[in-house]
């Protein structure tokens, strides 16, 4: 019976994957060449089986086609996206998260990696112990700060401090604008982020505001 149960589960998983591939094909229909559509189905199907989102692959394929990018370059970019998704998933697992991982969180982390962060930075941000929705916003903001030229170390420090201070999503989302304001006054992105991190650390010392709940994730394992 156990074998039969396993077989049925396997068939169900296969059906889900085939269903997902069908969805990928529909979303790409008429938007990319058959070759790129086939590649996205292959990569996306394999990604789904590993618990990764396929949406970033679909978006990248459509973007490349819209921009008139040659197929071989689109294919290369798709493979980079897969690597970034895998790197993010590994980073989240290193932070103590277990399968199934949140696909929105993976997408947010992959964006941050595109912007210049590393897997270890994603791990550090995920270890702040905040609820998943806050970590997702934190990862998006971290990617945005990196895109503004803030170095990874300063980015991680600023976003981690802000998360730990119990900041609201609105406070997190305001960080890139605050960095840009400081840069407009003559600071480098690194200096601007460091200054804001000091302010967040001071707030963290006084504890988070009372309206924030407990982390939905288990406490982070100790740093190696």
């Amino acid at each position, binding site marked *: 019976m156990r074998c039969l149960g396993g077989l049925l589960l396997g068939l169900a998983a296969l059906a889900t994957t085939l269903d997902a591939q069908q969805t990928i094909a529909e979303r790409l229909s008429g*938007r990319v060449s058959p070759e790129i559509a086939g590649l996205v189905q292959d990569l996306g199907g394999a990604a789904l089986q590993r618990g990764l989102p396929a949406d970033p692959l679909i*978006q*990248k394929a*459509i*973007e*490349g*086609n*819209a*921009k008139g*990018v040659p197929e071989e*370059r*689109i294919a*290369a*970019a798709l493979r*980079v*996206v897969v690597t970034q998704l895998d790197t993010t998933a590994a980073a989240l697992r290193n932070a103590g998260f277990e399968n199934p991982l949140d696909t929105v969180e993976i*997408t*947010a982390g992959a*964006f941050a990696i*595109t*912007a*210049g962060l590393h897997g270890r930075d994603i791990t550090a941000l995920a270890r702040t112990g905040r609820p998943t929705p806050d970590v997702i916003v934190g990862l*998006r*903001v971290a*990617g*945005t*700060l990196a*895109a*503004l*030229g803030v170095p990874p170390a300063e980015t991680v420090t600023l976003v981690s401090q802000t998360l730990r201070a119990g900041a609201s999503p609105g406070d997190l*989302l305001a960080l*890139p*604008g605050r960095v840009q304001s400081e840069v407009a006054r003559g600071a480098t*992105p690194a200096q601007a982020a460091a200054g804001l991190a000091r302010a967040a650390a001071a707030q963290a010392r006084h504890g988070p505001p009372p309206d924030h709940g407990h982390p939905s994730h288990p406490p982070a394992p100790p740093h190696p």
Partner: protein
Amino acid sequence: MTTHDFHPQVKQLLDGELTLTDLPPELRAEGEEALRLLAAVDREPVSLPAVTWRVMAALERKRQRRWTRAAWLLAPALAAAAALVVLLGRPSRPTASAPTGMVTVRFVLVAPGAHQVCVAGTFNRWDPAATPLVRSGSGDLWVATLSLPPGQHQYAFVVDGARWVPDPTAPAIDDGFGRRNSVLTL
């Protein structure tokens, strides 16, 4: 020559013209000290990703100082945006509209000589013609107001149906194809 000076043969070692074994035994220790010095040279690459947009923004600021100030009179928000780039796209500060959770974003572009401007991104499946901006003010200003869901969006402007222009004042990332995408985090 002071006590700190390396022996001329050790300097040749540092220059790569001799090896440690070429040195006479009495100079080996000094040679090893010299090689330890070279071993501490930091050859880590340095990357300055922000320089591109900083340079282009600085150039545009200089250019705008030479321009007529007429555009600045149209509206403070547009003027602030217009101060920075050659072809400038700048989503205005987003304002949340409570009932739907959507966020209203205004895209503004200064595109002298353009006949058509659209914005394409992850929010409209990168369709280069789906979301046109409308000409406003002096004729060089193009504006579109969109309601977007909270989250992360990447976008670029499409000028005259062919030219993909990132917003140089917004954060930007490599698009994987050798260009840049602007980033909007709501």
